[in-house]
């Protein structure tokens, strides 16, 4: 098996980076990504990534929280151990709404973040290469995964064509 490596092209302004990113997108590489210190406006289009389907996860988690909260309140007070407290009905739905609302928000919020980090971003993962320490400061990069020297050369040339200010090659998969 051929060893994988990444050819990384660096940019110093968001504008030149976005242009380059769009060019990389149009070449339709198998595996590539960009690295930026902050969410650059317009990056989704420049990378051609689809809208995240994370909202559906939040919605389902919210429904689960809603159902769980409703079950907790109604089951404890109506089925498990009905108690008469100041004559309030056992099935007092309006009084349960605050608790149901809170469980909905809690489950939706925590699940959204947990799912985003673990499923979409595959984090925590401490073993991926960090191409350059300035990528979380003031550098922007496009990284293209290549296998073999020949492919690396082609990609290097391509990155030079799209005006990368610096080009590095880093061992390891993207």
């Amino acid at each position: 098996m051929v060893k994988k490596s990444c050819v990384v092209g660096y940019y110093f302004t968001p504008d030149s980076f976005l242009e380059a990113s769009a060019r990389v997108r149009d070449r339709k590489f198998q595996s590539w990504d960009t690295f930026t210190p902050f969410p650059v406006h317009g990056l989704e289009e420049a990378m051609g990534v689809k809208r995240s389907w994370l909202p559906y996860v939040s919605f389902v988690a919210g429904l689960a929280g809603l159902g769980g909260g409703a079950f907790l309140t109604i089951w404890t007070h109506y089925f498990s151990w009905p108690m008469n407290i100041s004559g309030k009905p056992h099935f007092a739905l309006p009084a349960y709404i605050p608790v149901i609302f809170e469980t909905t928000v809690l489950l939706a919020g925590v699940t959204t973040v947990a799912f985003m980090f673990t499923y979409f971003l595959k984090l925590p993962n401490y073993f991926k290469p960090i191409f350059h320490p300035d990528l979380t400061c003031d550098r922007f990069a496009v990284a293209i995964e290549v296998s073999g020297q020949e492919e690396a050369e082609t990609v290097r040339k391509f990155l030079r064509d799209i005006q990368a200010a610096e080009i590095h090659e880093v061992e390891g998969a993207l």
Partner: protein
Amino acid sequence: MNTAQAFDKEPLVEGEKTYRQVSDDVCRPLESFPTRLWYVCFLVSLTVMTMGFGLIGYMIYKGVGMSGIRNPVNWGMMIVTFVFWVGIGHAGTLISAILFLFRQNWRTAINRSAEAMTIFAVMCAGIFPLIHTGRPWYSAYWLFPYPNQMGPLWINFRSPLIWDVFAVSTYFTISLVFWYTGLVPDLATVRDRAKNWVRKLVYGVLSLGWRGSGRGWNHYEVAYTILAGLATPLVISVHSIVSFDFAVSLIPGWHTTIFPPYFVAGAIFSGFAMVVTLLVIARQVFNLKEYITLRHLENMNKVILATGMLVGLAYGIEFFIAWYSGVPYERFIFMERAFGEYYAWAYWIMVSCNVITPQFFWFKSIRRNIVFMFILSISVNIGMWFERFVIVATSLANDYLPSSWRYFSLTKWDLGVLIGSFGMFFTLFLLFCRFLPTIAMAEVKSVMPPPQRETHHG
């Protein structure tokens, strides 16, 4: 340039900074030894906090009778201060969630510290109901629905006090998650700047291995927006539910439908005042004046003015409704509040601090005057503590049975615990300023004017 930017006359970041300078300036307090001033403030806060916890321990050992809570004012200082601290937290969520949804770019410089303030304020708040129970080791049994062998006997979900438990604990969790999500990219920045291995390890672990991948940012931004969307109704629900503790009861002066909006406005009012107090100090001590600019402070002062008037309106409407309802008890309580022999002094402190002094913020020169806004923000904080004091004390001290009327005042133990909670708040805030980036670097960079030409740095 879009329309919003065209209307921005003042830059959000002053001094024409580069991205690198932003990282340098924000990370400086983390990467250098703290100043003498920081040590002095920290030691003072830590001492006060330790005293507070000592007093709480002593109070629990001897019994909560040491506090001023007696019949008929059984809620006393504990619930007053609980509501006060929960209210303080609300500005943080408003800035991080609601202003985010409204695309208010100026929030980027202040959201991190405001969210930190939220978390610490809710932590301070949480202590008080626990002490108030007298036996906090039973709190799991009183507060959370856990399966038990007494029936099982469940907590009463029809009680607003239980709604409160759920609201405040959800609020705390979601605020923490929101804060941490925002912190991850900045922690990665600190990790990548780190010179020694301890720092690299600690911030590396905390930043989860974040690399700033473009595909990642896509999901990250969606998650952030969803969290903001969830936190927005949450923040409104929390103080509404806190107000239900009062409004659902049948006590004159509490049993009104205006309480939820009135409490939410008051919470945002007091919270913004606390943010101004803290940021005026923080921008001075950590030299962040170019990021937390007068424009940010002025905007916050405008919010203080607006919410202050909402609160003032609520005070007026309460009086009108008390009269208009024709209920003699309601009328009596409100007359007692404002002109009675027990608490008129507290009522007028509240009105002067919350309604009268914020009116100075109509003047632009005062909105942009650091000394003036610092004094006014502290005055608002005092006023808002007194608002809760007035609500709790006046309605309970004069109950339905005149023979049980009794004047409530804070004991020295109450005062000690109250001051101790401020010690805890400032201790946590100072630690935050020392160890975490106080300004959301990634967010500030995204609203800065981008550099126009390719430049190389060493």
